[in-house]
């Protein structure tokens, strides 16, 4: 039953058992520790405080007796009062201790001892009550008698009782401690036993689980995982080790898989090599494989089978083509790409046949075309020669034109120089005229001075005439002189005025001349500009004529080229004719399905379902070493 459980259940049961055992051991240990604790608690709570209270009472009874004795001895009333107060406080403390202890009594024996102490102490206190008044009354002798007699015996007896109580309590504490030791030893034994049992059980469970796991895997899990990873990576090379009796483990199954895969891979490799070496008839034995492996090997066999048939057919048709027989075709029907291949091959054969027929008729056409080309090229050559002659005439005319244009340019440049010089001279003339005008103006100013002098002389002459008149007869001669002077002055004045007028009019004329000269300059400059433009235009004409000349030369060269080209063309045409004939002979090798242009050649091939159409010339053909392409016309 345990064998059939899953790993999870096994692990769950094993660990649950271990957990239960651990919990039980823990609980048991806590229980035993509780008992030990009780024993120690009894010592602390009962026996130890009892001993302390009894000891305290013992001390206080001694203190009380000392205070009594001092009270008896003392004669100072103040001291006596102080001692009485002290005794009261000691007694109160003592009774407090006694009550506390009474609560801790735990056995009958102890109770009896305590009762005895209580009675003795009460009797002592009674004696004390009797003694105090005697002492207070200073009856020391009587007081001492009580103290040494009754009181002393009572004190001794209760002191002994207290000793007994202490012993009793110590004995009780010791008993409790021994009880704790016994319980500790017993608990230790039990717990040790339980731990040993749990360890044993855990070991057994672990061994059982590990053994069952190893039986199922056949190897350590990490090792099995590594094997599976190697398989996943395609590495089947390592031999797997299994136990002799192991047939059901994971590792054993992996080993079987390895064997099957190796066999299949070997077969597949064999077939692949056979295909690569062209042995299409090789096959693998599918029966040695099982299940899907067998299906796969069988599939490879079938694949090869499907290759063989069409390839045999293709071999046959291509072989016929090599013999020049273009009438063979594949007639069986295939599937998919093989069908496509068959159609392509059949189409190729058909097209080739058709094309060869066309090539034949093209060769014929080419023959006659080449003759025409030859004739045309001769005409072309003649025309080119005529063209060359007229080109030379044109060239010489243009050279003459060029010379006359150059002459024009030169003349225009000379004219330009003359016009420029004329402009410069006109400007110089203008300057001269301006200077003349300036000189005239200066003359006019100078003449004004002479005029002024003449006027002043005239005035002087008037004054002289006046003086002469006033002198009467004596001034007559002087009057004549004055009149003469005045006459001269007037003449010089009028002459000066005339000169001034002339100078003024000369200025006007000179200014006009200058203005005319200035107006002339722009005209001359304009003339010079125009002449320059003419010169420039002539230069451009020269350039243009040069260009025309070079163009004519180029045309001339082209014409010569045409002439030689047309001769070459004639030669080529002859070459072409012979090549076309050669082509016709070559094409005779092929046998084509259908009658076509086969009249002069025997047809060896079979006639196909559709006869090939009469070849038509549909395009250009290359032939022989020729590098020119001709469009048939």
């Amino acid at each position, binding site marked *: 039953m345990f064998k059939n459980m899953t790993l999870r259940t096994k692990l769950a049961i094993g660990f649950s058992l271990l957990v239960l055992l651990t919990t039980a051991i823990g609980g048991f240990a806590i229980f035993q520790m509780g008992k030990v604790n009780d024993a120690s608690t009894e010592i602390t709570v009962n026996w130890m405080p009892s001993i302390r209270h009894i000891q305290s009472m013992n001390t206080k009874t001694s203190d009380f007796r000392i205070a009594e004795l001092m009270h008896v001895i003392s004669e100072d009333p103040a001291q006596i009062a102080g001692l009485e107060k002290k005794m009261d406080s000691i007694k109160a403390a003592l009774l407090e201790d006694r009550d506390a202890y009474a609560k801790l009594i735990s056995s009958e024996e102890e109770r009896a001892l305590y009762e005895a102490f209580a009675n003795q102490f009460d009797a002592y206190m009674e004696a004390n009550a009797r003694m105090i008044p005697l002492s207070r009354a200073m009856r020391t002798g009587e007081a001492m008698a009580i103290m040494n007699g009754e009181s002393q015996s009572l004190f001794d007896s209760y002191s002994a009782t207290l000793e007994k109580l202490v012993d009793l309590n110590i004995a009780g504490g010791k008993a409790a401690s021994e009880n704790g030791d016994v319980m500790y030893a017993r608990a230790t034994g039990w717990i040790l036993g339980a731990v040993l049992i749990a360890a044993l059980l855990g070991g057994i469970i672990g061994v059982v689980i590990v053994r069952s796991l190893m039986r199922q895997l056949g190897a350590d899990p990490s090792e099995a995982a590594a094997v599976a990873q190697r398989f996943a990576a395609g590495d089947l090379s390592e031999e797997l080790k299994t136990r002799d009796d192991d047939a059901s483990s994971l590792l054993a199954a992996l080993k079987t898989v390895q064997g099957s895969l190796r066999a299949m891979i070997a077969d597949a490799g064999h077939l692949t090599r056979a295909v690569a070496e062209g042995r299409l008839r090789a096959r693998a034995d599918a029966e040695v494989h099982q299940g899907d492996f067998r299906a796969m090997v069988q599939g490879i066999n079938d694949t090869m089978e499907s290759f063989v048939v069409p390839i045999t057919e293709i071999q046959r048709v291509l072989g016929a083509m090599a013999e020049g027989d273009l009438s063979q075709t594949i007639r069986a029907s295939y599937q998919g790409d093989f069908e496509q291949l068959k159609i392509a091959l059949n189409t190729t054969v058909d097209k080739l046949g058709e094309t060869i027929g066309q090539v034949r008729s093209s060769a014929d056409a080419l023959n006659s075309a080449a003759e025409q080309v030859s004739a045309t090229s001769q005409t072309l050559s003649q025309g080119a020669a005529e063209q060359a002659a007229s080109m030379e005439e044109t060239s010489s005319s243009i050279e003459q034109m060029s010379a006359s244009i150059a002459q024009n340019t030169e003349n225009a440049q000379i004219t330009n120089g003359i016009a420029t010089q004329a402009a410069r001279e006109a400007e110089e003339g203008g300057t001269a005229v301006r200077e003349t005008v300036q000189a005239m103006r200066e003359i006019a100013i100078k003449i004004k001075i002479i005029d002024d002098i003449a*006027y*002043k002389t*005239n*005035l002087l002459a*008037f*004054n002289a*005439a*006046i003086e002469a*008149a*006033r002198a009467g007869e004596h001034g007559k001669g002087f009057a004549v002189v004055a*009149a003469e002077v*005045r006459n001269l002055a007037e003449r010089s004045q009028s002459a000066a005025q005339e000169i001034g007028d002339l100078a003024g009019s000369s200025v006007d004329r000179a200014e006009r001349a200058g203005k005319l000269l200035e107006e002339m300059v722009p005209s001359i400059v304009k003339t010079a500009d125009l002449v320059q433009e003419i010169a420039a235009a002539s230069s451009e004409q020269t350039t243009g004529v040069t260009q025309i000349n070079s163009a004519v030369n180029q045309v001339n060269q082209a014409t010569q080229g045409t002439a030689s080209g047309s001769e070459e063309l004639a030669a080529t045409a002859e070459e072409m004719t012979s090549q076309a004939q050669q082509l016709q002979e070559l094409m005779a090798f092929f046998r084509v399905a259908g009658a076509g242009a086969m009249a002069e050649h025997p047809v060896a091939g079979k006639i196909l379902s559709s006869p090939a159409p009469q070849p038509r010339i549909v395009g250009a053909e290359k032939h022989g070493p020729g590098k020119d392409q001709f469009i048939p016309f």
Partner: protein
Amino acid sequence: MTRDTTLESGQEKAQYLIFNLRGEPFAIPLLGVKEIIEYGSVTHIPNMPVFIRGVINLRGRVVPVIDLAARFGEPPTTVGERTCVVIVELQDEAGINDMGIVVDGVNAVSDIPASEIEPPPRFGAKIRVDFIQGMWKSQDRFVIVLDQARVLSIQEINQLAEMMEDGPAR
């Protein structure tokens, strides 16, 4: 020189100074003229009639200058290059005084026979008739011979000056 003297001289010639004023020739007897100077340095005197141009310093003597054009009631003379001041002697009951006349230019000294001087017209002249002593026909035009004593009457000038002091000149 007086009108009587001139009349007495009869056929005798007398010398006249001919000068220009606003384009017209005028004549005054040469004997009344002291000298001719160029126009210049006339000191203007305020509050005087417009025909008194001012005074000049003639060799230390103060000589008043009359603008004849203004005296004739025309716009004052514009000073030009040929403007002159003719210094004349005036004789009245107070004695002999010098006075300057502003003229546009001096033309000539001419001998004019008294017979050629014709009496002034009754009307048609541009100036007051009583200023004109007579008219002398030169080669092509008439020369007005001025009555110097009337034109330059000191008495009348003083009256006009006093009127100026009392009120506006015109």
